[in-house]
């Protein structure tokens, strides 16, 4: 049939009866190229437009926040309640990690950055606001009989010096470590508070540890593996994994607030300059009683 079709067109062409038949095909081709080019150029112009408009976000009532994934769920709830009160303001919350948040806030890419670790001299100079405090819980599978570890034991478990659960009073099974990837605020805070001595000597989290890129995926690994041990932020604690006590102190907000629970870190909002306009309004709002109640409700430790 294909061959026949060719002849068919050829016949028409040769007989000069309807030579137009061939043209539309080529028109379609060339017109579609033109459309393609137009679409491409529109995209390019569009990209440039969004770039240039990011500077005028304050005026148009948009606040952009990005940074620590630990702070993210809290920031989303604070933003929701802020937007309920100020319907013309749009607060956009993104993740990215503490380092990215600090850098983006410093460079003015976002209005507010979020950090779930102490700022270091390596970070660019930014204004910081202590939004809340957060405990880091050591979690194991619910089937694991272990309920309590000393902070020394936690350090040895995660450095790999202790590799079997029976060395800390559990069953005779290899410990499967699950940690966050390097650069994560949760991992940095865990490293600073658990793996580092006051005199500065430090252990590294074992290189054999499985690395997951979020609190949620650590929970998923630990819940499915009876011999796993991981660490997550208090805000993510659920029933499906068991959070163990450290030095006999249960991972609860009260214990973290009164200083019994040893692994507590700050959560910061950071800005490149002193905040003004709606950014300042939003940050001020985060320290009001209502906002701090949301902080507590999300499982973090309020600063009031």
């Amino acid at each position, binding site marked *: 049939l294909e061959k*026949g079709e060719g*002849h*068919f067109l050829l*016949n*028409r062409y040769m*007989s*000069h*009866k*309807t*030579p*137009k038949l*061939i*043209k539309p095909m*080529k*028109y379609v*081709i*060339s017109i579609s*190229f*033109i459309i*393609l*080019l137009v679409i*491409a150029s529109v995209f390019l112009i569009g990209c440039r437009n969004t770039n240039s408009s990011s500077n005028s976000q304050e005026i148009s009532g948009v606040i952009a926040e990005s940074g620590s994934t630990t702070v993210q769920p809290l920031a989303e709830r604070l933003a929701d309640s802020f937007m309920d009160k100020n319907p013309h303001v749009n607060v956009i919350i993104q*993740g*990215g*990690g*503490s*380092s*990215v948040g600090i*850098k983006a806030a410093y460079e003015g890419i976002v209005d507010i950055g979020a950090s779930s670790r102490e700022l270091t001299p390596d970070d660019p100079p930014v204004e910081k606001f202590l939004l809340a405090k957060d405990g880091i819980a050591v979690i194991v599978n619910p089937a694991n009989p272990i309920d309590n570890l000393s902070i020394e034991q936690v350090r040895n478990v995660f450095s790999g010096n202790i590799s079997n659960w029976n060395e800390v009073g559990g069953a005779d099974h*290899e410990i*499967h470590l699950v940690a966050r*990837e*390097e*650069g*994560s605020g949760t991992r*940095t805070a865990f*490293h600073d508070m658990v793996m580092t001595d006051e005199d500065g000597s430090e252990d*590294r989290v074992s*290189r*054999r*540890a*499985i*690395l*997951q*890129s979020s609190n949620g995926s650590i929970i*998923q*690994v630990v819940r*499915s*593996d009876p*011999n*796993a041990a991981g660490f997550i932020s208090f805000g993510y604690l659920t029933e499906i994994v068991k959070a163990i006590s450290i030095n006999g102190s249960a991972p609860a907000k009260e214990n973290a607030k009164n200083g019994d629970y040893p692994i507590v870190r700050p959560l910061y909002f950071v800005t490149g300059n002193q905040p003004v306009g709606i950014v300042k309004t939003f940050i001020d709002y985060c320290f009001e009683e209502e906002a701090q109640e949301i902080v507590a409700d999300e499982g973090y430790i309020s600063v009031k």
Partner: protein
Amino acid sequence: MKDIFRSNNQQNRNLKPDPESERITENAKNRRSRYLSDKSARAGVLICAALSFVIIIAIIVFILQEGLPAFIEVGLFKFLFGLDWSPSNDKFGILPMIVGSLAVTIGSMILAIPLGIACAILLAEVSPPKIRNLLRHAVELLVGIPSVVYGLVGMAVIVPFIRDIGGSGYSVAAACLVLMAMVLPTIISISEDSIRAVPNKYREGSLALGATQWQTIRHVLIPAAKSGIAASIVLGMGRAIGETMAMIMVIGNAVIIPTSPLDPARTLTGNIAVEINYATGLHESALFGTAVVLLIFIILLNTLIFNFLKRGNSESGST
């Protein structure tokens, strides 16, 4: 057939009876617009081709430019053969990731090549048409499944299965099994096509000599299709080495050189995807450096494919 065309032509003639003079001017016009549309189509094709070329060059230049500081500051040898990757301690050695990528690629190939070629032989030569259609649809479906779904199945099924054997389950072995499923469709469909493309006279000749079907497949068809089969394997390797999402989900991402299939590992692609969120400065540059190494691997593989295909062509040309 010819009757149909004739009647069609007649119909057209009846619909559009055009006088001689009109026809000449029409033709002149048509010729000019045809010429113009021809030119514009040629220009359009050229622009599109140039655009894709520019994009590829731009990507390569960008990756090299971003990755170069890592090569210079860390040192090429230390970067490529360093055992320790610890960005917070300023240590950037990607040997564990190179080994990880090679391990999962080779491992998955060892699993996928026999399976894939066997399946291709079945589809091309052995199975009755009904089963062949069913199987081919299944294979095509495998191609369309997003890699994150493979990863999910790997996490839910394969990882616990490996955990029962030993270790945490997030391992090279789990990654190899997931990758095997992902590269199978590539190997099957291209191998099948190349076995099918073997001229029928080969089959007939072999059978006429008294060979059994298996002997024909083993000693005639596979050797005749070997360049196509080799190309399918290398294409599968390309997919395996570039796979990212599914690998992150099942391989554990630990930066160690795996000493057993039950150990976790990290691939080059996984290294970039896992850490780019947190990377700044030299760390970011080191990740681009990882991309450069990945790019070189891919270029090597592509050259290999090109050579196989060229050899295949010249062979079939000479016979």
